[in-house]
């Protein structure tokens, strides 16, 4: 009988999985199973750092394509997959969720959602990924629905309308699963929505709490909006945030105030636009906030994923929340209080003389958009953007894919009409400039530059660091690995398609893989046959 059991075990397919179950505790303790990538940033701390080191500085040059998954759609692929026990959960723009075998790229199932034709989108029919919790996959759709799918079949379990797409709401970011809730933001910063962050019951889809990112009349902060401008002030929440289990705090960044480039109609600081919010994960109650760009007039969203970092600064142990902001400044905050600790420019910027003791920028005159155009660094794409930066505890460095680029900012009409663009201007490129990019390694406590790897053009793609001493990143259509200590190039691959996505890494059958979406495909790399 013993032999029979052994024979039966051997007869099972190699990819036989344990029953699919990702309870909250697995995501909380993601570091204990680095072979999986259980949430948008790999773990709750937003570091996009992997403990895997099978691929490392000594063998990265031997990386080869393991498989390619073609996306038969023309929209930009921005997905950052989740990897669970040999299965990848991805989104394909504009309307699909798929489960793929992580070793071969072959699909298990596809869910397709029929979308209305009259979506209100500023920036393409894109999606950045899913969340998993228990035995379900969660996806937020372009028509602003939160959708729960059975992780084994892709069948719909429930769908809940987050908001009305016809007035400019949409969802593009990956939800965040926290305990028994699914937290999801909303896009629509160019349509004059009133932004919010929502939490839904993972089992039923019932909304548990909503935090409006613009306070209503009578609430503290509403006085930072002139007149009724708060009603159309935007402050969306379109990129996935971070979570700290020890304090049960969700950290989530907010986007630009609306209209983007015409601040005349919304005098004041415009809270909580361009702000880091610390919220109680159970109730959505605000613990603190820090506004990076009061009264933003350049569309410098602060929505990108922050990194939660425990480190020693100036001999003192610190609990930091750090971010290379689109406005050109790097910020290190105390994440227990939201207090400003340090900050400095990490790219060229010409709009502020610096940050004061509280971290508030001191704005320079004549830098606001004008009808004729005002030349300002950085451009509206920012010093960095929504794509991932990464922090490596191994090097204690924060890595960011920067853009050295300016723009002429124009102020235009700002007339609100529900469901139509509410920009109030825009930008025009500076014809006398040769913009460039770089991967920069910053001291995490101060933002001081440690090294840079210069790139021909600015990137619009994320980074990931690993315990193998690597930083993976992209530029144009190239995907590459740098030495995390010194910044030297170790490996590169020409994918042939523009990369607008974040990398992930995972293990399947004892082998480490690295994945990036490029062009209209997913490229997955592993070691060659020599045994990497």
């Amino acid at each position, binding site marked *: 009988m013993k032999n029979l059991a052994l024979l039966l075990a051997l007869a099972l397919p190699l990819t036989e999985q344990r029953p699919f179950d990702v309870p909250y505790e697995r995501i909380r303790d993601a570091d204990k199973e680095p072979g999986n990538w259980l949430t948008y940033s790999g773990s709750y701390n937003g570091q996009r750092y992997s403990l895997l080191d099978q691929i490392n500085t000594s063998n990265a040059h031997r990386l080869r394509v393991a498989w390619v998954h073609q996306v038969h759609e023309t929209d930009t692929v921005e997905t950052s997959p989740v990897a669970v026990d040999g299965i990848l959960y991805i989104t394909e723009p504009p309307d699909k969720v798929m489960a793929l075998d992580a070793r071969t790229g072959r699909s298990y199932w596809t869910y397709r959602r029929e979308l209305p034709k009259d979506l209100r989108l500023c920036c393409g029919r894109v999606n950045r990924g899913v969340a998993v919790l228990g035995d379900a996959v969660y996806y937020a759709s372009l028509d602003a629905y939160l959708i729960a799918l059975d992780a084994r079949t892709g069948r719909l379990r429930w769908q809940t309308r987050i908001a009305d797409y016809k007035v400019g709401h949409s969802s593009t970011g990956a939800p965040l699963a926290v305990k028994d809730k699914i937290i999801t933001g909303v896009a629509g910063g160019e349509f004059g929505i009133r932004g919010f962050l929502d939490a839904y019951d993972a089992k039923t889809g019932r909304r548990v709490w909503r935090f409006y990112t613009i306070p209503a009349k009578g609430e503290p902060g509403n006085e930072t909006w002139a007149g009724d401008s708060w009603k159309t002030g935007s402050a969306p929440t379109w990129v996935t945030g971070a979570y700290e289990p020890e304090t049960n705090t969700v950290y989530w960044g907010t986007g630009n105030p609306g209209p983007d*480039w015409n601040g005349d109609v919304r005098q004041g600081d415009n809270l909580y636009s361009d702000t880091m919010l610390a919220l109680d994960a159970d109730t959505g109650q605000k613990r603190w906030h820090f506004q990076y760009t009061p009264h933003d007039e350049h569309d410098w969203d602060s929505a990108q994923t922050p990194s939660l970092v425990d480190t020693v600064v100036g001999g003192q142990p610190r609990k930091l929340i750090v971010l290379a902001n689109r406005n050109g400044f790097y910020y290190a905050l105390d994440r227990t209080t939201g207090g400003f600790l340090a900050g400095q420019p990490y790219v060229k910027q010409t709009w502020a003389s610096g940050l004061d003791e509280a971290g508030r920028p001191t704005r320079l005159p004549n830098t606001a958009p*004008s*009808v*004729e*155009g005002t030349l300002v660094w950085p451009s509206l794409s920012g010093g960095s953007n929504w794509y991932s930066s990464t922090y490596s505890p191994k090097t204690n460095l924060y890595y960011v894919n920067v853009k050295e680029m300016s723009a*002429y900012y*124009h102020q*235009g*009409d700002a*007339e609100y009409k529900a469901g139509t*663009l509410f*920009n109030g*201007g*825009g*930008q*025009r490129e500076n*014809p006398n400039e*040769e913009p460039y990019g770089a991967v920069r390694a910053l001291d995490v406590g101060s933002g001081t530059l440690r090294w840079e790897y*210069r*790139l*021909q*053009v600015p990137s619009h793609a994320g980074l990931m660091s690993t315990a193998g001493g690597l930083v993976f990143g992209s*530029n*144009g*259509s*190239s995907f590459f690995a740098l030495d995390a200590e010194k910044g030297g*190039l170790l490996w*590169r691959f*020409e994918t042939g398609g523009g990369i607008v996505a974040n990398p992930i890494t995972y293990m399947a059958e004892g082998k480490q893989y690295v994945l990036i979406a490029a062009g209209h495909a997913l490229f997955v790399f592993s070691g060659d046959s020599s045994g990497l």
Partner: protein
Amino acid sequence: MRLLPLLLFCFAVWAGESKEKTKLPSRRSDLERGEKLYQGHCALCHGTRGDGGRGPSLLRRRLTRASDDAALVKVIEEGINGTEMPGASQMSPREHRQVAAYVRSLSRVPATPVPGDPKRGEQLYLGKGECAGCHAINGKGGTLGPELSDVGDRRSSAYLRASITDPEADVPRSFLQVRVVAKSGRTITGERLNEDSFSIQLRDYSGNLHSFLKQDLAEIHRDRGKSPMPSYKDKFTGTELDDLIAYLVSLREAK
């Protein structure tokens, strides 16, 4: 048949809406706003007075790519695919119409006539100037310089004159002359066709294609603003120059 009245009604409503949508404003304040927007967004290429530059002159009643007001608004909003004309998506629909109204007002400004004889200009182009050695018109000619089949639609006469007498006065950003020096010491000069962080592709001035990994290069010189075209200032007389420009201005996209 019961549908016909409904369809006619719908068409009437649609036509009315469409007309309303593209009706250009005529108030003085709209034209002033349109001019301000024009100076910020358009004048760099089309000239501060609309007399052209890198882009064509707008001082004419019939614009090649904008036969009516609706088409003009669309060009301002979306740009022209495959050309250097970008769309102004950052403007609101009302601002598109204000700019269009200002552009239309320019057509009432008399354009400076282009002197010269295009027929004689064509002979100079093919003969004394040897222009066809580098430039192609309707598929005939060299590949080194930009194609000129519709250059009269794209460039003003003043811009063409400057390009011929002082080719480096304004070299389009899409053209970049590079000189690369390989670690072996070999030097190649040509037009950059492509470049990323790791490699560069170019065509030398004999038409040969080259690709280099940057790790194999000792130097890369990007001669922004440089042109391989010589100045024809002293080669042509004033009258010949007028004739040549008249010929180039006459080159328009076939309809």
